[in-house]
């Protein structure tokens, strides 16, 4: 089958922010617009330099040190992302796809994103090709760079990247780099935002640099050493702040072959590109090859380096962003480091000519890590005296989470040998209880968290990836309570599900179950168990 530009573009959309539904031959693409409005660059009306907001006020000040004038931002471009996304899909993207395929399309708007659903029922060959390229993956969290684009003609590779950019590329006036050009300041960047997909980030970076021969400025990885290298967030109890998306950043002036089909993104891209050209920045060749890692750029040891949400190749310490790409299999880095005494030695130093052996380097850099960790400023103690709020006289629902969790643990593991664990999902953040789980259980819990599936308690038994869900109530159990846990169960299919209350079952629920026991079913013969918690014991109804 000959691959069209339309199919290459859809493939890019899919990899960027798409879902593939094999059972009904559908593809859905999510176009995010968390903020309804997006703004262009503010330029000084006197000297034309970039003007930025003063962090201490709402004023915009010219960045030209010889000018420093206050600037009114009223003249900057401003786009309603929701409207532009909808209109671009209707007037540009769908007609573009229609010119090649017989697809049934649906545009579904939302406050924070717009969904494009493509039905391939009448284009099954093309759908089969997409499935083949997906190689078993089903959505943007787990897609790899499709095999086809590792050696595709340039025009198709560019169209694939256009798709990625429309789905998850952001020309953003706020993402400038503090650099001076011959006639301007602030180098604008565009970034590709990749959510939860480590290998795709490394592969896309490699694809842009090696296949398209375009420079990537940097990769901002969602890794604790990169995002929170001074442990400021960690020490402020924001333990998961590093666990966000990854960003591949580039300067727009080298990407003028590309074209967004979303009008607001294309106009912003053109604006950023024009700004950089006007400022006359020096030539940039991108981050590759990497520089040697100096002693001063070694990073402190971060307690989250071993977080179970990090995939194994990157569940360790890093000092530079490119080391993650190497750990994730970058071929260009492996080739660049192939002259070193070992690839591990190169990875630790960034020196392709390093001759020392790995263990000697490890000893040296681990001392530098310790030194950097010990030099972090001490955490100041709390001086504020907190006055406890008066407790309500009636016990709250959350007061029963711990005793019910303990009772369930005793039921699952009478000898308390550690074969079962029950977590209170409200009391602990995800990372703290994931630490105690096996890798397949971690993956499952992350998936549930992404779907906002949060029953009050979750239990696990050793070697059983499927969990036990527990929904706790302190009132008479009613039909609406059953509905809440039923929604979670229909999707997550836990091994067991328990709806438990400190009170007895309400009459309406009792009568409904007697009349139609099927209302407790959630698939494969599994049913929700109704239980009462009394005197520290769980009794099933």
């Amino acid at each position: 089958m000959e691959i069209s530009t339309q199919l290459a573009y859809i493939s890019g959309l899919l990899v960027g922010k798409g879902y593939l539904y094999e059972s009904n031959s559908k593809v859905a693409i999510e176009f995010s617009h968390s903020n309804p409005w997006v703004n262009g660059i503010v330029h000084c009306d006197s000297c034309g330099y970039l003007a930025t907001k003063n962090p201490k006020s709402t004023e915009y000040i010219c960045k030209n040190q010889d000018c420093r004038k206050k600037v009114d931002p009223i003249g900057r471009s401003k786009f309603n992302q929701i409207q532009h996304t909808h209109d671009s899909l209707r007037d540009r993207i769908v007609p573009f796809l229609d010119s090649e395929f017989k697809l049934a399309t649906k545009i579904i708007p939302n406050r924070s994103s717009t969904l494009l659903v493509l039905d391939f029922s009448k284009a099954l060959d093309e759908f089969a090709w997409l499935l083949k390229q997906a190689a078993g993956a089903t959505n943007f969290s787990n897609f790899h760079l499709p095999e086809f684009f590792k050696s595709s003609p340039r025009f198709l590779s560019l169209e694939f990247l256009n798709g990625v950019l429309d789905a998850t590329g952001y020309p953003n006036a706020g993402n400038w780099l503090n650099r001076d050009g011959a006639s301007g300041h602030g180098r604008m960047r565009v970034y590709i935002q990749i959510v939860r997909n480590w290998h795709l980030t490394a592969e896309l970076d490699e694809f842009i640099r090696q296949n398209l021969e375009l420079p990537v400025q940097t990769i901002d990885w969602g890794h604790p050493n990169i995002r929170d290298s001074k442990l400021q967030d960690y020490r402020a109890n924001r333990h998961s702040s590093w666990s966000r998306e990854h960003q591949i950043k580039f300067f727009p002036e080298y990407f003028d072959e590309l074209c967004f089909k979303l009008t607001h993104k294309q106009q912003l891209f053109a604006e950023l590109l024009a700004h950089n050209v006007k400022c006359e920045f020096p030539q940039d060749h991108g981050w590759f090859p990497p520089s040697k890692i100096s002693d001063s750029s070694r990073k402190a040891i971060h307690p989250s380096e071993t977080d179970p949400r990090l995939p194994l190749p990157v569940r360790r310490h890093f000092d530079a962003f490119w080391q993650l790409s190497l750990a994730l299999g970058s071929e260009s880095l492996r080739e660049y480091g192939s002259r070193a005494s070992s690839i591990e030695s190169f990875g630790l130093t960034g020196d392709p000519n390093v001759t020392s052996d790995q263990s000697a380097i490890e000893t040296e850099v681990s001392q530098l890590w310790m030194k950097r960790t010990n030099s972090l400023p001490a955490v100041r103690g709390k001086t504020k005296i907190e006055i406890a709020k008066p407790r309500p006289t009636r016990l709250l629902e959350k007061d029963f989470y711990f005793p019910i969790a303990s009772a369930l643990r005793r039921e699952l593991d009478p000898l308390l040998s550690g074969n079962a664990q029950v977590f209170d999902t409200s009391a602990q953040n995800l990372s703290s209880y994931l630490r105690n789980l096996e890798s397949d259980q971690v993956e499952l819990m992350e998936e549930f968290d992404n779907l906002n599936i949060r029953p009050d308690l979750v239990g696990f038994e050793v070697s059983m990836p499927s969990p036990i869900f527990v929904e706790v109530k302190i009132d008479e159990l009613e039909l609406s309570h059953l509905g809440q846990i039923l929604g979670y169960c229909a999707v997550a299919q836990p091994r067991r599900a328990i709806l438990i209350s400190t009170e007895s079952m309400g009459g309406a629920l009792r009568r409904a179950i007697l009349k139609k026991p099927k209302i407790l079913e959630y698939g494969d013969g599994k049913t929700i168990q109704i239980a009462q918690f009394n005197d520290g014991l769980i009794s099933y109804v």
Partner: protein
Amino acid sequence: MSKFFGSEITDMESLITNTLVELAPDFDIISVFKPARQLKFIADQELRGVRDAESWEFKPDWVVVLKDRQNSEKEVAFLNVSKGTLGLTELGELRVMALLAQPRIAIQLAPLGLSRDLYSVWLDAEIQDRIANFGKSKMQVATFSNFQSLTEAPLLFV
């Protein structure tokens, strides 16, 4: 009157009636109401003619009584309206009502759309069937084709 995003659904009754005319062409719509109490306590004459209605101890947001033009048998349609973006727990609540009453049509209207990740779940035919299939029919999820102007936008079934 329901208010979303500054737009207003001024006439839910008309919206529901127009939707049901499309979805149930073989039925007459004989009553549309917003129950204030559990359905077993509702005195609506038309609802009383629906089999088993006197045992329904729950309250959907809107109820429509339909009459089959061929055999004059009465059936119901339920419509729940989400206050925020639609999540799984609300779908579960409608599922319980649908399993008990076996309505001809059950719609979850989400004026603010579905929560971001629920889209991916709902579009998966297998998972959708697990949530939506209640025996007689399947629950449907609807939003608006242009949520910035609800009064003009037709319903869009996801």
